[in-house]
Each structure stands twice: as structure tokens, then as C-alpha cells.
């Protein structure tokens, strides 16, 4: 039997054949086209329709974009230039309005000589965010910090920042780059201080106000620390009470006294001088930073077994989600005035931030509740089995997983909220989309300009929102630990 076989196999190949290139019809652009665009009759028809639509759009808008005018004093002049260059009937975009008014789109009525303050504050924002957003990737953090530092310093020089501020900005930003390389968690101290620093840089005034807030919080923390051994609950109450009492009754006077002793102030800016993207980003960043923790607390409260906590959270969430944001803004701007004593000036931006925050927090709570609900029951039981108390279980086991699940929803709430900041136009603040455009058009030179401001602000909004979206995808990839 074995002989039989030996005769039938005269040759056994003992090396592999070299790989052949695929046949021509299976490679190259042609194959890609055939596989992706013309793979069948329906696909072919759709491709042709798509191309027609693109052609239709481009052919209608191309000449408008191609005939762009950047240097002109008014719309009339733009029209003259377009007529002179491309013929009488040509139409074109008049970007000169952006060139002349870009600073108002960016900063509103913020004094021109102080533009460096929002710029540096914005640069510092990246320093504050880097250790939070990019806590694990040294390389990305390095790139972000270096780019932010370079951009901030260059822009500050361009708008004519005075030397002490430049030095201050350079020390902080370059210091952050260095610290981030060695011991990134140290940057979190800066992140914690940033809200006060940012507020001071944007609104100016006496730094003692911010310092006294800081001192109140520090003393509150001290009170907590001293009493935490007696009882954690009493410690929390003591800490909060001390902080609030100091803020309400001592901080204001102390700040004024200290200010008269040692003046430590920079030019104060009124809230009504804010506008454009400065306003949007201020409201957006504050809203995002505040609504996430508030949303988490609300979500936990809504899933809580405690009757009152649960019902209060449900009422809050459902009520806030049930009314449009615009209603809340009107309440903030109009109704509050009736209830405040006459003559008090409760800052309008602060009012708007509060309303935007609670609005976003209500949505956030539901998004996070979705994440909590998606977590298998075994995780909760595992946490219990380990003997963790409620807060430890949430902090160490439940929330990290629930938040990870909710990332897409959270970020889309952020994006939605950031875009909603344009609604402040209805309470008389100058949002970039309509508020600024309206008064730019109210100047006779630019009356009649319509699409250009929309396209400009739209582009900037797109850049910001797209960045947020990409970041959320990066975060999802990075946190992907589950079974693939």
C-alpha cells in the first residue's frame, strides 16, 4: 500500500511559491472605484446622482467664493471691486466685513488694548485641561501644551501684551510643559486654581476678591480636616458652613480692606463688554465644567433609594428638561430682576451661566443614568461584596464604567450646550452668530451683508465642535478595555 503511494507522487515541492501581485483588475484606483462607487446598478445610479448634486452645489457657489474681496471699507466698495474685477454681473463674497470686524466677533466690546488677557486666559485653559483630558498619554499632552504655549505667546505679542504679562504667561506655560514631562499630577493644582485665575483675568478688578474666595475654601477644607475624625457627616457640614459663612460675611469686606492696604488690581471689565466667541467660550467652558459634576450627582440621586432625594431629582430633571432653554434665559434676565432688590446688579453672564448649567446638567443626568443602567448588575453586587461603602463603590467601580459608556452622550450634550450659547442673543448679550452680526449690519457700511458672517462663525463653531467630537472618539479608543 505504501509502495503504491510512493509511485504516484513523483515530486514534492519543498519551498513556497513567491507571492504574485494581484491581477490588474483587482488593484489600483480603477478597482477602488469599481468596488466602492460602481459595484452594481443601484450603486452606480446613486454615485451619479451624488456627483450631480455636488456639481450643482459647486457650480452655484463656486463663483461666489472665487470672487472674494478681503480689502474694502464697506459693502458698496466690495460691490464696486467685484464689478470692476469680474464684470458687472459678477457676484462675490465680501469678506472685508470679517477683516474689519473680526475683533468684535472674537471679543465683543472687550477693550482692544486688553485682548491679551482673554488670549492668555484661553491659553491657560489648555494648561488646566491637559492633565485632566490627557492624563495617560505623555506624547499628546506634550504636543498640546507646546502648541498652546507657542500660540498663546505669539498671539499675546501680536496684540501687544505688556511685558509683565508676557513674562507671567511664559513662566506658567513653559513651566507647565516642563512639569508635565516630569510630574504631571502637579498640574492638577493649577487646574484647581484655574477657575479663579481665569475669572480674574477675564473680568479684572481686585485680585483680593479671588484670593479671599480661595482663603474661604481653604479654611473650609481645614475645618473639614479637623473634624473628620469625629464624624464624616459633621465634617462635611462644618466645611461647607465655614466656607459659605466666610464667603457671605467676611470675604467681601476683607477683600476691600486688603485692596485698600495693598492694591492688587487690574482694569475691571464689565460683563456687558463681553461678546462674540469670548462670551460663547466663557459660558460654554463654565457650563461644561459645572454641568458634568452636577449631572453625575443628579443621576445618582435619581437612582437613589432615598425617597426625598429621588423625587427631588426627578422633579428637577423633568422640570428643566420640560422647558426650553430660552425660557430659562428669559427667567434669568427678566424675572430675576423683579425679585432682586432695586439697584442690585446680579451679573448677567453669571445668571446665564447658572441657567445654561442647570439646563445641561438635567440632560447630562439622563445620559449618565443611561450609563448607570447599562452596567451589569454584577458590578454593583461585586462592589457590595468587596465591602465598599456607597461612595467608594460609586467612585471606584460604578462611575468609571458608567461614565465610559456614556462618553458619546456626554460629549454630544457638551456640543449641544456650546452651540446653545448663541441663544443668549435673546437676552441682549452679543453672541457671535446673531448678536454681533446684527449690530455689524446696523452700521450702514455693512448693511446688506448676509452670508459671510454666518459662514465665518459657522466655521469657527465647526472647528470647536469637531475637536470635541474627535476628542471623545480618542477617549473612547483609549478607554476601550472590554472584549472585542
Amino acid at each position, binding site marked *: 500500500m505504501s509502495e503504491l503511494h510512493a509511485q504516484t507522487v513523483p515530486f514534492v515541492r519543498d519551498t513556497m511559491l513567491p507571492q504574485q501581485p494581484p491581477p490588474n483588475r483587482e488593484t489600483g484606483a480603477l478597482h477602488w472605484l469599481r468596488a466602492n462607487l460602481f459595484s452594481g446598478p443601484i450603486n452606480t445610479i446613486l454615485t451619479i446622482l451624488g456627483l450631480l448634486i455636488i456639481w450643482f452645489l459647486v457650480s452655484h457657489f463656486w463663483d461666489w467664493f472665487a470672487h472674494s474681496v478681503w480689502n474694502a471699507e464697506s459693502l458698496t466698495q466690495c460691490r464696486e471691486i467685484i464689478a470692476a474685477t469680474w464684470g458687472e454681473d459678477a457676484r462675490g463674497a465680501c469678506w472685508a466685513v470679517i477683516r474689519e470686524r473680526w475683533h468684535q466677533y472674537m471679543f465683543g*466690546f472687550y477693550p482692544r488694548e486688553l485682548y491679551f488677557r482673554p488670549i492668555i486666559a484661553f491659553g491657560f485653559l489648555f494648561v488646566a485641561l491637559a492633565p485632566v483630558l490627557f492624563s495617560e498619554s505623555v506624547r499628546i499632552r506634550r504636543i498640546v501644551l507646546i502648541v498652546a504655549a507657542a500660540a498663546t505667546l505669539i498671539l499675546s505679542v501680536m496684540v501687544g501684551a505688556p511685558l509683565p504679562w508676557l513674562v507671567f504667561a511664559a513662566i506658567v506655560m513653559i513651566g507647565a510643559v516642563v512639569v508635565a514631562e516630569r510630574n504631571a499630577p502637579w498640574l492638577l493644582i493649577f487646574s484647581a486654581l484655574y477657575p479663579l485665575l481665569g475669572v480674574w483675568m477675564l473680568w479684572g478688578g481686585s485680585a483680593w476678591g479671588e484670593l479671599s474666595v480661595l482663603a474661604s475654601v481653604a479654611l473650609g477644607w481645614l475645618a473639614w480636616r479637623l473634624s473628620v475624625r469625629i464624624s464624616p457627616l459633621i465634617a462635611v457640614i462644618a466645611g461647607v458652613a465655614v466656607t459659605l459663612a466666610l464667603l457671605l460675611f467676611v470675604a467681601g469686606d476683607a477683600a476691600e480692606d486688603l485692596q485698600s492696604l495693598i492694591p492688587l488690581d487690574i482694569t475691571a471689565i464689565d460683563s456687558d463688554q463681553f461678546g462674540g466667541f469670548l462670551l460663547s467660550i466663557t459660558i460654554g467652558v463654565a457650563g461644561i465644567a459645572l454641568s458634568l459634576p452636577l449631572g453625575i450627582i443628579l443621576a445618582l440621586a435619581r437612582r437613589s433609594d432615598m425617597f426625598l432625594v429621588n423625587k427631588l431629582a426627578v422633579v428637577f430633571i423633568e422640570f428643566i428638561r420640560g422647558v426650553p432653554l430660552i425660557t430659562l434665559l*428669559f427667567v434669568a434676565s427678566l424675572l430675576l*430682576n*423683579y425679585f*432682586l432688590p432695586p439697584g442690585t446688579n446680579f451679573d448677567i453672564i453669571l445668571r446665564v451661566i447658572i441657567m445654561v448649567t442647570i439646563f445641561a446638567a438635567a440632560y447630562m443626568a439622563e445620559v449618565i443614568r443611561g450609563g448607570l443602567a447599562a452596567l451589569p448588575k454584577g458590578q454593583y453586587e461585586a462592589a457590595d461584596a468587596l465591602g465598599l461603602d456607597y461612595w467608594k463603590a460609586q467612585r471606584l467601580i460604578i462611575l468609571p464604567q458608567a461614565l465610559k459608556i456614556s462618553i458619546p452622550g456626554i460629549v454630544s450634550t457638551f456640543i449641544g450646550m456650546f452651540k446653545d450659547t448663541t441663544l443668549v442673543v435673546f437676552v441682549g448679550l452679543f453672541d457671535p452668530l446673531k448678536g454681533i*452680526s446684527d449690530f455689524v449690519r446696523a452700521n450702514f457700511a455693512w448693511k446688506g451683508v448676509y452670508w459671510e458672517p454666518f459662514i465665518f462663525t459657522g466655521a469657527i463653531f465647526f472647528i470647536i465642535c469637531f475637536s470635541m467630537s474627535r476628542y471623545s472618539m480618542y477617549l473612547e479608543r483609549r478607554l476601550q478595555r472590554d472584549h472585542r
Partner: protein
Amino acid sequence: MKRTAFLGTLTAATLLGGGAFAAEGDTLAEVKARDELICGVNTGLVGFAAPDANGNWAGFDIAVCKAVAAAVLGDPSKVKYVPTTGQTRFTALSSGEVDVLARNSTWTYSRDTDLKLDFVGVNYYDGQGFMVNKDLGVTSAKELDGATICIQTGTTTELNLADYFRANNMSYQPVNIDSNAEGEQQYMAGACDAYTTDASGLAATRAAFADPENHIILPEIISKEPLGPAVRHGDNNWGDIVRWTLNALIAAEEYGVTSTNLEELSANSANPEVQRLLGTSDELGAMMGLDNEWAKRAIAASGNYGEIFAATIGEQTPIGLARGLNAQWTQGGLMYAPPFR
């Protein structure tokens, strides 16, 4: 403002929760203590109120604010302009957020009574008109039967339009728009045959077109829109100050007092009315708690009524409005200041 006051006001708000409606205090004293007049203005209306590239406000309504600030505080630049939208304007005034509202607001019965405002006078007599393309071949609003009309929603113009067409037994197809800029865009794109808004706005819109000669403003004015500054009910002295500042500007034009001959006339005018106006005789200012040169400063701020009109919206400006109803009563208009006596 001081941010340290935030928390203070926050508690005050909670403590006073549901507290009394704001401000029936002494506005004059408040303004003087603050050393700043808070003026509610439009968020941007060609010729009437608009900030330039440096953020300085200018316009026909702004001039009223400046005159009041000059009269009360001695400096026309001591004004804080609070931009108000159509929805927020009256609440801003009645809640005390602004001292005076100079925002092209129409003086109507219900606003004066029900909303508890005091319109102190009229600084511009406007009226609603129509603009059509010349190619339409229409020369009168009576021929607009069945036309599509671009109309801003939520304004009195919308109601006026409905009234007018019903009264004339005509029909129309409304195209709702949200803002003037959108209206222009829709009208230019041919979405509507006619565009209707206040005649002053139509003139400005038409002047900004690439081809103004192809559009006509129809002669019919279908509504009365007396625009004027307003103050809150309840502080009559403050109302008097704003009213008579406006009257001083109007009277100054009537008596030929301009920003250029102001000093000369106050030194040696023989006209007793001018003397009283400029404070060289009698003590008119003291009657409202101001000094005697209040009107002089108000006029010096941006000139008399005619000068303000000419500089912001008049025929020499691109907007090119004729005086029309807004001429002095001696010229066949409606501008008539009561005597300074």
C-alpha cells in the same frame, strides 16, 4: 461691577424671595450716585443705534441718551448702553435695569397704561410702508391685492398689515421673517413681492441695495408709529427730566440754537425764550433738581434736534430720510416743543 457682590446678592435674593417689584425710587439720585446713565438701546438699527468698529455707539436714539447724560451728569460720555431686544426692552425698563429706554419704541395706549411706562415724547414719527421691485409695476399699496409680503413676526407691523388689508378688502400671502437682515435677503431672492416695515427702515434697506434704483417705496403709510424715549411710571421728576431734555433739543432747533452758536447765544441772545432755555435768565433747572445749564449741555452733546437728525439719518447720510413729519411745526412738521417758561 464687583464680583464679590455676587454672593451677597444671591443671598439677598433668597432672603427677599418673592420680594416687592423693583424701583420706584429716586432715579435722579440713583443716576447721580452712580455717575452713569444706563440707557436701554436697540441691539443694532441702522441710523438709530449701532456701535462702530471700536465699540462706540452712535445714532439717532443714542443722541437722546447722550443729551440726558449731559444734562444730568454734565458729560455725554457717561452713559452705559444696555442693548435690549424686542422681548426684553420693557421688562428691562420696568425692573429698573435701565434708567431710560431710547429704543425706537412705538408709543401705544397699552404700553403707556398697561405696561406702566411713560413715553415722554416723540423723537421720530415713523409709519409703516411698503417696498416693491419696480418690475412689479405697482405704484400704490392699493394694488397689492394677492401679493406675497415679507413681514417680521411678533411686531406691531404684522398687525397693522392685517388691519390694512382687511380694511381695503384685499388678500395677501405673508412670508414670515425673523429679522430685518433676513427680510432683505428674502426680498432680494424674490421670495416676496413686497417688503413691509417702518418707512425709516425701508429707506435704509433700499439705500443698502446694490441696485436701489430698481426698488420703490410706495407712497402709502399704513400706520402711525410715534417712536420715543420711555421711562418707568412712578418717578415723575425723572420723566420730566427726560421729557424736557428732548423738548430742549427740539426747541433749540426752533430758536436756531446750534452746537456751534451755543456759547455765543448764551452770552448775548436777546430772545427771552433762548435765555431761559440756556439758563442765562430764570432758574428753570432748579425746578427739576438740576443746575441752570442743563439744557445748554444737552444741546452741546450732539447738537439740536435738526443737527442730530441730519448727522444720523438725514438726507446727507446714506440713509437719506427727509424730515417729513419730523420737521418743526413751523416747517409743516409735527415737532413742537412746549414753551420754556
